[in-house]
């Protein structure tokens, strides 16, 4: 029940394809980040996985069984698609009570999960009075209610304060360590880098890559060598002759297209003294932006454009 297989999943709405022949696998034991820019099809994919949206093609299975065929799915797969999916006029406790009753979960479990997510003292307050962060916690409580083996969460850190973010990060890691399968979507790679070990990256509904965070960085992050030297002008033409490009940054020169070892050897032959020769790696955020650059659906205006 613990491995999620998504195979050739396709979901079309009038006029466009939201999920396009998407395939990936999510394994238990670690958190898998489901990444993509806004509008890339993450939420639609998750809705198709649990049968809320009807896919036109492909399948999503939980150890070979489709979600609709699961008996008592709350005990198998816990899902959080939108923290706002709770009636604003109902208390958090009553919200979980009806959910628990629908599959025969004991009332005491409701109080247990409310305490677990830190809402025990405010559980009788109406959801409409909750902050977004509290609603997220309620959403997590509904996921945990059935003590499921698989957890699917769509942007769970939205609206959480730093303490809440750390809490959910630790919770998801702990759940994964227990051998559960955890799939978490986000458009923030920096957050995913702290939670996830594996990434499924999509853009415009298509799979861009599935790999570990380390592999993703190695494949997509920019790498360069930062050089500080009194004789850097002597090094520049030699590096250019070998195909390197350069840029200046705070008194240092960044060399692109050569490794630190190559630059060190080149400098030694030319008698260049180095005060700094350090390999640099671009941020995961930059790597993510580079990987998904061609598939971003909604671009913002550049800041200089906005200034006019």
């Amino acid at each position, binding site marked *: 029940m613990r491995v999620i297989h998504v195979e050739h999943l396709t979901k079309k709405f009038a006029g466009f394809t939201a999920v396009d022949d998407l395939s990936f696998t999510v394994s238990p034991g670690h958190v898998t980040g489901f990444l993509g820019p806004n509008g890339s099809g993450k939420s639609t994919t998750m*809705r198709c996985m*649990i*049968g*809320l*949206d*009807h896919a036109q093609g492909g399948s999503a299975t939980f150890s070979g069984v489709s*979600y*609709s065929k*699961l008996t008592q*799915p*709350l005990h198998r797969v816990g*899902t959080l*698609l*939108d923290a*706002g*999916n*709770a*009636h*604003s*006029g*109902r*208390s958090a406790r*009553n*919200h979980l*009570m*009806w*959910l628990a*009753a*629908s*599959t*025969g979960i004991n009332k005491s479990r409701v109080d247990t999960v409310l305490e677990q997510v830190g809402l025990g003292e405010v559980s009788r307050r109406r959801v409409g009075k909750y902050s977004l962060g509290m609603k997220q916690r309620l959403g997590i409580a*509904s996921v945990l209610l059935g003590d499921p083996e698989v957890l699917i969460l769509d942007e769970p850190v939205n609206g959480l304060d730093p303490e809440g973010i750390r809490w959910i990060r630790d919770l998801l890691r702990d759940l994964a360590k227990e051998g559960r399968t955890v799939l978490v979507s986000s458009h923030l790679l920096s957050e995913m880098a702290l939670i996830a070990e594996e990434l499924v990256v999509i853009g415009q509904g298509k799979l861009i890559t599935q790999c570990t965070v380390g592999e993703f960085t190695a494949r997509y992050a920019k790498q360069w060598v930062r050089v500080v030297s009194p004789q850097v002008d002597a090094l520049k033409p030699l590096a250019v002759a070998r195909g390197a490009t350069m840029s200046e940054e705070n008194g240092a020169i960044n060399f692109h297209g050569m490794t630190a070892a190559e630059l060190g050897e080149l400098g030694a032959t030319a008698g260049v003294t180095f005060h700094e020769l350090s390999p640099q790696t671009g941020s995961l955020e930059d790597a993510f932006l580079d990987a998904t650059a061609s598939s971003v659906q909604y671009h913002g205006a550049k800041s200089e454009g906005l200034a006019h």
Partner: protein
Amino acid sequence: MLHLMKSEFIKLRTLRSTLTATFVLIAFPIAVTVLSAMFAKSPGETMVMKVLTNTGTVSMLLCGVLGVFAIAQEYSQGTIRITFAATPTRMKVFAAKAIVISLWVAISVAVLEGVGLIGANYALHRRGFDFGVIYSPSIFDNSSGHGDSAWQVLFAFGIVCILFALIGFALGALLRSSPGAIATLILVPLLVEGIVTGLLLAAFDIDISRKTPFTAAIRAVQVEPDAARWGLVGYFSIWCLVITVIAALLMKRRDA
């Protein structure tokens, strides 16, 4: 199925809007009926029953509103996704909701009728009248041409209230919007049916006044109906059934 029904019952009883609508649908006809019994110049069984069923028209509409609430609020608040995630077999959810809202309305109407008649009976006794509906329910002082007993009127009223709840539920499922479904539920019987009937009569000399479904439902609960009571109830039931089946099929097919 029992788990699902319990879940749906919790949903209904934990919302202020549902409880308020239920209170009004019960209290309004009771209050008017008892006040009529207290102050009417020439009270009797037929008068009390007429007041109860006529003011009960408001209750019928409120039963429809409860039906709308049972499903449309789930769409507007997003809880339908949690409901379907917990129970992927949507027809089970549909059936559980329909059964629970029907039982809810049936009990509410039973309370309305029981308390209304007992209250009216008590008021009349205090005035020295001997009110007979409760003691000899088969006889009206002004019996209709269809030979209906008070029990038949009360039973028909209960059935029509349940049908209103179901048609409201079906409209809520179709439109997925409380304001849209409630507007449809109120405007069709009060306005649209009359306008369409008038237009067809004026333009094409076609009279559908005896075929409009909501009007048939309201005629069915009159103390002295102008047609066979159970024929009118059956006719409205067919409309409810058709709309409910369409709503169920669409709920199964559409994305949540």
